[in-house]
């Protein structure tokens, strides 16, 4: 399935991407194009291969065949840390925080990466205090300023996810990959995270896997529906939700 305008500015593109696990094709021949500046949602029923696609894109899995291009550069063979340095940052399905560090330290670890001091074991960590202001500003932006010195592991789930977003934004990613940002949340937290994702999308591209179709409807500029590792439909929420195949796949659950 091609994008409407082939000349459109693609930040991320996969070409015939496949992943097999012992003969089972979790993802097959996937041609995905993510346009710069979009919030692009990847949806589909359970077992459709969303998380596999996600892990392929973030290099936590190696594709069986196919290529992945980021800004036109082939990143298929790169390591997770390499693509992170290119500005592709992921979140995880379960909250990815450093539970034993404070929220401030969580964000600071991310800010620290750009300082080139990370291998300096002979230097005092007092030099990291210059990052505190920026870390606080990021915590503030996700509403966690009051918790900067708390024990991260003891924060409520929604706050952990907010912290994760703040940490991710600290890296100033060009492309943000969010794996089910609202999974397992109460309605109140869902609204807060939705607003945060919207806020985070300013000036960058977001590709997200999301189950909550209300969130997808609110946020996504473009949606790709996966089924059995292949693209079932693609388009805006309005287009996709009217697609008879999609309606069938979701058995009428897609607000149809």
């Amino acid at each position: 399935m091609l994008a409407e305008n082939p000349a459109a500015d693609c930040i991320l593109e996969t070409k015939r991407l496949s992943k097999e696990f012992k003969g089972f094709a979790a993802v097959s021949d996937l041609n995905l194009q993510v346009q710069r500046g979009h919030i692009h949602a990847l949806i589909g029923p359970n077992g459709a291969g969303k998380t596999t696609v996600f892990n392929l894109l973030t290099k936590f899995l190696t594709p069986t065949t196919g290529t992945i291009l980021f800004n036109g550069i082939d990143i298929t063979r790169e390591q997770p840390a390499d693509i992170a340095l290119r500005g592709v940052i992921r979140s995880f399905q379960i909250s990815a925080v450093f539970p034993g560090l404070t929220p401030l330290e969580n964000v600071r670890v991310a800010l620290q990466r750009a300082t080139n001091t990370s291998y300096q074991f002979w230097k005092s960590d007092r030099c990291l205090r210059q990052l505190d202001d920026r870390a606080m500003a990021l915590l503030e932006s996700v509403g966690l300023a009051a918790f900067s010195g708390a024990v991260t592991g003891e924060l409520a789930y929604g706050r952990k996810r907010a912290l994760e977003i703040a940490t991710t934004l600290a890296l100033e990613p060009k492309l943000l990959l969010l794996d089910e940002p609202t999974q397992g949340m109460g309605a109140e937290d869902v609204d807060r995270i939705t607003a945060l994702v919207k806020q985070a999308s300013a000036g960058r591209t977001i590709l997200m896997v999301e189950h909550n179709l209300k969130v997808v409807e609110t946020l996504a500029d473009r949606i790709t529906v996966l089924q059995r590792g292949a693209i079932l439909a693609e388009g805006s929420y309005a287009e996709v939700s009217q697609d008879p195949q999609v309606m069938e796949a979701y058995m009428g659950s897609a607000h149809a």
Partner: protein
Amino acid sequence: MNRYVWLALVALGLLAPFAVYPVFMMKLLCFALFAAAFNLLLGYTGLLSFGHAAFFGGAAYVTGHLVKNLGLTPELGILGGTLFAGLLGYLVGSLAIRRQGIYFAMVTLALAQIVYFLALKLPFTGGEDGLQGIPRGLLFGLIDLNRHVTVGSTPLPLSLYYFTFALFCLGFWVIYRAIHSPFGQVLKAIRENEPRARSLGYKVERFKLIAFVLSSALAGMAGAMKCLIFQLASLTDVSWHTSGEVVLMTLLGGVGTVLGPSAGAFTVVTLQSQLTMVGPWITVIIGGIFVVCVLVFRRGFVGELGRLLRRSL
């Protein structure tokens, strides 16, 4: 931690040989440094090495060989032992960090057993007897480390003690600095959540390897010190019992605390020397204490104390 606490500890260290049998005190310092070096890996990087005796004992043999057979001065001997342990740590670490958890521990154990075998078979190691009668020599070619100063009526080996204490402080300071450095901050992040650290763009393997080399080099320095103090490098130093003991010391005192491993080492070594009269039952007693401690103070006693005082010790 509070500056005054540190000053008090240093003062205690300086006065210790007048109150405690100096050779025993030096043994405590060696194992305290060994455990602190081990803790850099287990407590701050989350890597359980089960082969740290290879660095401790390996350095002891190298230092012994350099000093006894090649006639180097003690400081060069210790430097040589430390560098050797660091190099060995680079080799072992490069292989071991490719695996995680129990597999990491097993790779380190297996490689340490190779070092044990070499210590038994190589021509210069003295086989079953180990290297004996290693001279302490002249520090920098000037200060006789065998010199005893008579205080009251007891002769005390003060030059050797203060040399040992200075090296201990140096080693401990390096560990402290590494823990509280930008590098240490990333290590803690890796310990807390490795995939996340990776996804933030940190090359986790490189950090682990540097931590491994630092830890093994400092463990080697502890072994090199022990070799000069006891004038002996023996198979016990490279055996897996020693690898296990350092795990015990670290857990008892408090893994991931600055002072815990040293406190644990003090406890275990003191118990061992106080309980020698009970013979083989010592293993049972120390084992029992260990079980009780792990059940009651899961963070080790310094860890629990720190929790009570709400500060990191």
